[in-house]
């Protein structure tokens, strides 16, 4: 069984920062926004570290907590060796676990933290994730100023960082259950079509979540996938219909929703681990889009060496069910 119910773990609060393109997107009320990609640092990578630090410090301040009040920090990002998270965490003096499952990292961190928290009586934990468009472009794609033409299936790595505070004391958002996904490889080799890479993984985790917990899709008011993008979201719908006879009505994809259609530079939508929490905390939960929400983080686990060696791309998705009071 990859699914498990969770007792008494709550998301008390969250704090987000969003980048310059996100600021012009579909959400206006981010806690903080950045005017440029450097964020008063020398490099994009250092900007991302600063973004993580800023969201953590602001979240702690907002909730009147000290570093010593936090039992565990679980963080992940897209940089090689998840160094952004490690460098940011090196300044906090909080026990640290780094996680990587590409853009599913945020959901993985929620699962890890809630599992660690279950056995405790009183606890505060932080789940942090970030991504930076230009740092990701530099690492995974072409030099930034090169501006290589891209196909329409490309997704645009979102810039932002989100820190969320998990506690044992009841709050409005309860982590009800989770499902750990399996790695799926459907033979897609195109790293510019990540929606197609990840859609089967999202379908698989959704099906095992529903079967193991004996639920149907209608149980949820909203199923929110991470960053399939607009094309990937359509593929997921069709894949579920053909393979499992399921019609997804209450489905939104954070990647597809994060930007406006007029923002052409974002192609098929947002990607990156931060896309899901940005949309979840700043739109879905603030606008109260439903009481039972299933979030599915989707990650394309590609590596440049293997992409160049023409191996197909494995993907993963994890699901967490939230109950909003």
């Amino acid at each position, binding site marked *: 069984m990859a699914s498990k119910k969770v007792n008494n773990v709550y998301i008390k609060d969250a704090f987000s920062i969003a980048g310059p393109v996100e600021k012009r997107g579909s959400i206006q009320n981010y806690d903080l926004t950045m005017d440029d990609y450097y964020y008063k640092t020398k490099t994009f990578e250092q900007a991302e570290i600063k973004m993580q630090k800023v969201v953590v410090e602001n979240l702690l301040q907002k909730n009147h907590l000290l570093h010593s009040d936090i039992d565990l920090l679980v963080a992940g990002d897209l940089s090689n060796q998840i160094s952004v998270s490690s460098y940011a965490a090196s300044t906090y003096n909080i026990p640290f676990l780094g996680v990587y499952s590409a853009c599913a990292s945020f959901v993985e961190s929620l699962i890890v933290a809630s599992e660690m928290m279950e056995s405790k009586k009183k606890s505060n934990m932080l789940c942090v994730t970030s991504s930076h468009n230009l740092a990701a472009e530099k690492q995974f794609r072409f030099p930034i*100023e090169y*501006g290589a033409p891209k196909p329409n299936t490309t997704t645009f790595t979102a810039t932002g960082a989100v820190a969320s505070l998990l506690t044992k004391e009841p709050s409005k958002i309860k982590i009800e259950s989770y499902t750990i996904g399996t790695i799926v490889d*459907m033979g*897609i080799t195109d790293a510019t079509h990540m929606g197609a890479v990840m859609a089967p993984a999202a379908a698989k985790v959704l099906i095992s979540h529903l079967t193991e917990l004996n639920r149907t899709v209608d149980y949820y008011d909203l199923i929110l996938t991470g960053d399939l993008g607009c094309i990937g979201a359509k593929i997921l719908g*069709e894949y579920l219909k053909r393979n499992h006879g399921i019609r997804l009505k209450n489905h939104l994809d954070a990647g597809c929703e994060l930007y406006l259609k007029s923002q052409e530079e974002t192609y098929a939508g947002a990607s990156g681990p931060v896309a899901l929490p940005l949309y979840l905390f700043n739109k879905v939960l603030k606008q109260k889009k439903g009481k039972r929400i299933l979030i599915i983080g989707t990650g394309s686990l590609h590596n440049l060496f293997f992409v160049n060696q023409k191996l197909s791309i494995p993907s993963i998705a994890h699901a967490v069910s939230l109950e909003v009071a």
Partner: protein
Amino acid sequence: MNKEEYQKLVEQYTPKEKKLKNAVIAFLVGGSIGFMGQVVVTIFQNSFGMEVTESYAWLCILIILISCFLTALGFFDNWVSKCKAGLFLPTTGFAHSVTSSALDYKKDGFITGLGANFFKLAGSVILYGMVSAFFLAVLGVIIYG
């Protein structure tokens, strides 16, 4: 659903790239840059009294300078997305690729960053340019003696 069936499903939902439109844009943009180059060469020859080979060398230098400058100021990448492959003419594209790599890695050290990554994209152009030049030269010797 097996992998082949999934591949078909994906293709069905993948929007077609507008290849013809892109090609026409690239042709017009690339053509007009070539036209402007010819104008400049003619001016060099007529007004500055340059020899033919000399004027082409100066044009090359001028194009490299302009494209490096535009890349560094952040214009080139936006234009590439609009003008498609038209701006990737050998000289402009080459200059643009080394400048953009240099900008990306300048903070990672002059040797380990800038130096090591300068020809990240242009390396293939140099290598295969030289290889094909060699074979063409051999062919030329065989045919023309």
